[in-house]
C-alpha cells in the first residue's frame, strides 16, 4: 500500500513539474551539456618514434597512414559502427557486418570497444610486414573467437558463414545453403591432425606450412602499402 502511495506521489510530482514547465514555456530544455561531454573524447597516438619502434613501418608510411586515419576519424578512434560501415563500402553486394565484427575483435587487442591508431597500425604491421608465421598467428587469432587457443567447429562455422555472407545472393554458381558447412568440413579434415574436433595453433601452423598454395598467397600482401 505504501509502495502504491509512493508511486502515486512520484507520478504526481512529475505531472506537476511538467505542468509548471508547460506554463512557463521551458518544456524543451537545452541538452547541449550532454553533447558537449561526448565530443571532448579525443585520442592522441603515441609519438612517431615510439610507433616506429613498435611496428615495422617507416616514418613516411606511418605519416601517410595516420593522415588517412585522422581524416576519416578526427576523434582518433574507430568504433565498431564506423568500422562496419567502412568495411561495407568495399563489399556492396553482400552483408559484411559479421566479418567486420570479427575483424574488429581481432584489431581491438585491449578489448576496450574502440580501435585506436596504435591498434590499427600494430595489426597492419603484422599482416603487411610480419613473417609468414606472424601472419598465420594473426589469422589464427582472428578465427579463434573466444581467444582460448583453439578453433572449434562452431567458431569456424561462424567465420565461414560470415565470409560467405559477404558474397551476397547473386553468385555463380548458385550459393547452396550447406556450402559453408561443407567448406568447414574440408578445413577440419585438412587442419585437424589428431581428429579431436578442434584445431590448435600448432596444428594450424603446421598444416598451413605444408600447403604450398597458402604459403604462396601469404606473399601477396607485401606491397599493399
Amino acid at each position: 500500500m505504501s509502495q502504491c502511495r509512493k508511486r502515486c506521489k512520484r507520478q504526481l510530482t512529475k505531472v506537476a513539474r511538467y505542468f509548471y514547465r508547460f506554463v512557463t514555456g521551458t518544456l524543451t530544455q537545452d541538452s547541449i551539456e550532454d553533447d558537449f561531454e561526448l565530443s571532448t573524447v579525443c585520442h592522441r597516438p603515441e609519438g612517431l618514434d615510439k610507433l616506429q619502434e613498435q611496428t615495422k613501418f617507416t616514418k613516411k608510411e606511418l605519416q601517410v597512414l595516420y593522415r588517412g586515419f585522422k581524416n576519416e576519424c578526427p576523434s582518433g578512434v574507430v568504433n565498431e559502427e564506423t568500422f562496419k560501415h567502412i568495411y561495407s563500402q568495399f563489399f556492396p553486394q553482400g552483408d559484411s557486418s559479421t566479418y567486420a565484427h570479427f575483424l574488429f575483435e581481432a584489431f581491438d587487442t585491449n578489448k576496450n570497444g574502440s580501435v585506436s591508431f596504435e591498434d590499427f597500425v600494430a595489426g597492419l604491421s603484422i599482416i603487411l610486414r610480419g613473417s609468414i608465421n606472424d601472419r598465420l598467428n594473426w589469422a589464427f587469432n582472428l578465427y579463434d573467437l573466444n581467444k582460448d587457443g583453439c578453433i572449434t567447429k562452431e567458431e569456424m562455422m561462424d567465420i565461414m558463414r560470415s565470409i560467405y555472407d559477404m558474397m551476397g545472393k547473386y553468385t555463380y554458381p548458385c550459393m547452396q545453403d550447406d556450402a559453408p558447412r561443407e567448406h568447414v568440413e574440408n578445413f577440419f579434415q585438412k587442419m585437424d591432425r589428431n581428429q579431436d574436433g578442434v584445431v590448435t595453433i600448432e596444428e594450424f601452423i603446421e598444416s598451413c606450412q605444408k600447403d604450398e598454395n597458402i604459403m604462396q598467397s601469404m606473399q601477396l600482401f607485401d606491397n599493399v602499402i
Partner: protein
Amino acid sequence: MAAGVATWLPFARAAAVGWLPLAKKTMPKPPIDKKSRSDEILFVNVSGLRFQTWKNTLDRYPDTLLGSSEKEFFYNEDTQEYFFDRDPEMFRHVLNFYRTGKLHYPRHECIQAFDEELAFYGIVPEIIGDCCMEEYRDRKKENQERLAEDNEAGEGGDAPLPPNSTSRERLWRAFENPHTSTMALVFYYVTGFFIAVSVIANVVETVPCRPIKGTVKDLPCGEKYSLAFFCMDTACVLIFTFEYLMRLFAAPSRCKFMRSVMSVIDVVAIMPYYIGLIMPENEDVSGAFVTLRVFRVFRIFKFSRHSQGLRILGYTLKSCASELGFLLFSLTMAIIIFATVMFYAEKGTKGTNFTSIPAAFWYTIVTMTTLGYGDMVPNTIAGKIFGSICSLSGVLVIALPVPVIVSNFSRIYHQNQRADKMRAQQKVRMARIRLAKKGTTNAFLQYKDDGGLQDHDSDSTALCVKNRSAFEHQHHHLLHCLEKTTNHEFTDELTYSEVCMTESVGYRTSRSTSLSSHQGGSSSCCPRRAKRRAIRLANSTVSVSRGSMQELDTLQVHKTSVAPQSRSSLNARTEDLKLNCDDRDFTAAIISIPTPPANTPDESLPPSPAIPGILRNSRSGTFPHDAVKISSL
C-alpha cells in the same frame, strides 16, 4: 563509393589475410603499382593565391579535373606548379571539398558564378552537403525563374515583326501586345471600357428606381428601363463576341486557345445572353434563365487581361495551392470536431438553435473566423467553454498558412516589377551594343584610310597605324582577307547612301576592283580628309539601299526609292533605314578624287564581329572617305 574510403582500401586488402588459410583456390596475383606510392605535396596557384595539398587528397576524386590527368594541362614547368586563372575565393571551397569530402555553398556568392566554377573543375553540384543543399536549391530556383522571365521579356512582343508575317500573325500579336500598334491600343481600351459598362449596367439594373406612375411598389431599374438595358447588353455582347471570334481566328493554336482560362471566361461571359435569346419565354425555364444571368458577373474577370495586378494575384493563388489546401483541410477537421462537440453540449437546451451537427457547422465557422454574427449562441456552460476554445483555435489555424501566401505574393509581385524594369533596360542595352558595333566598323574603316591595308615598308608606315595593337592588326587583316575574298569592300552607311542616291540618275557603272582608296604614305598621322558632312552615327537613319555608282562628274542629291538590288550595310538594320539624305552637303571636293570609287558592302558580311572592348567614340565630323569605290555585281 565515398572517395574518403579510398584511404581504407589498404586496410581492407590487408584484412583479406583472414581468408587465405580457408581459400579453396589459389589467390590471384595482386596488381603491380608502377607509379611511386610516395605522397608528395602539390602546389596549386590560383590567380596568385598559392595552395598546397597532398597529391593523395586530390586523387580522392578521380573523375574531377584536379583528380585526373586533366590537371596536367595546367602544369607550369617553370614554376613547378599548377596554375589556374580562376577565382581564388571559390577555389578555397573546391579544395575543401577534396579535403573533407563535403562541398559547401558560400552564401554570399552568386549562384551562377559558383555553378560555373563547379563546371570548370568537373564537380557535380549534387554532392553539396546537406547543410548547404537547401540554400543552394532555393537560390538556383530563384535564379532560373528570373532567367526564364528575362527570356520571355526578351523574346516578348517588343521585338519587331518579321516582315513577311501573315495578317493572322499580326492580328495575334496585336491582341497579345496592345502597345505595338495604335489600332491594337484603341481596341484594347474600347474593350476595357465596354467591360466596365457591362459590369456597371449589371449592377445598376437591380437598384430600385422610382415606381412607374400608377403603381406603388418600387421597381428595380432593370425592369423600368428594360429596353435601354437590353440594348446596352446587346452592344456589349456584340463587342465581346466579335473580340472572341477575332482572337479565335488569330490564335496560332486554336485548341490551345480554347482551353485557356481567358477563353473560358470569355465564353461564360457571353453565353447567358445567347441562351436567353434562344430560349422561349417559358415559365419553367425562365427561372433557370435568371440563374444564368449570374454568370454575367464573370465579365469582370475579363479585366485580368487589362490589369497585371489581377494576373499576379491569380498566379499567387495558384502557386500557393498546397498551403491553401492545408488550410482548408485543417479548417474542415476543426469544424467537424467543434460542431460535434457543440451539438452534444447544447442538446439538452430547450429551443436551441443547434438542431443538428450540420446546423452547428455554421456556428463553428462563424466563431472560428471570429465573425460572431450572434444568430447562434450557446446557452449551457459547457457549450460556452467549448465555444471559447473554438474561437481561440480558429485564430491559430487560420493564421498559420497566411504568412506563406503573403511571402509568395510579395516575391512574385517584385519579380514582375523587375521584369518591367528589365524590359526598359533592355532597350538601353541594345542601343549601347549597336554603338559598340558601329565603333568596331569605324575602327576598321579608319584603319584602311590610314593606309594600314597597303603593303609598304616600315619606314613610310604612318605612326598611327604602327601604334595599333597586335590584336587590332590581326583583326583588321582578317577583315581585309574577307574583302579580298569577296571582292567587295567595307564601307560606312553614309557613303553607301550616297551611292544609292545617284543610282537612279543613271550613271555608268564602272567595275573597279582595286581597293586602295587613298594615296599611301601621308606625311601627317591620320591625315584629315575633307570633311564631308556631319555624321550622326548613333541615330543615323541612313538608307542602305545599295546601288551602283561610278565615277562622279557631279553629285546630286536625289531622293530615290530603294533600288531593286538593295542590300543592307554592315550594321544598320533594315528597319532603321529610311532615306534621309537631306542634310548632305556634298562638296565639289568629292569630284577631285583621283582613284575611282568603289565600295560596296557585301551582303554576305557577317554582322560586325562583336568585339566588346573596342568602342571608339563616334568619329562624328571626320569620316575621311574621299574615295568611295563601288563595283556593281
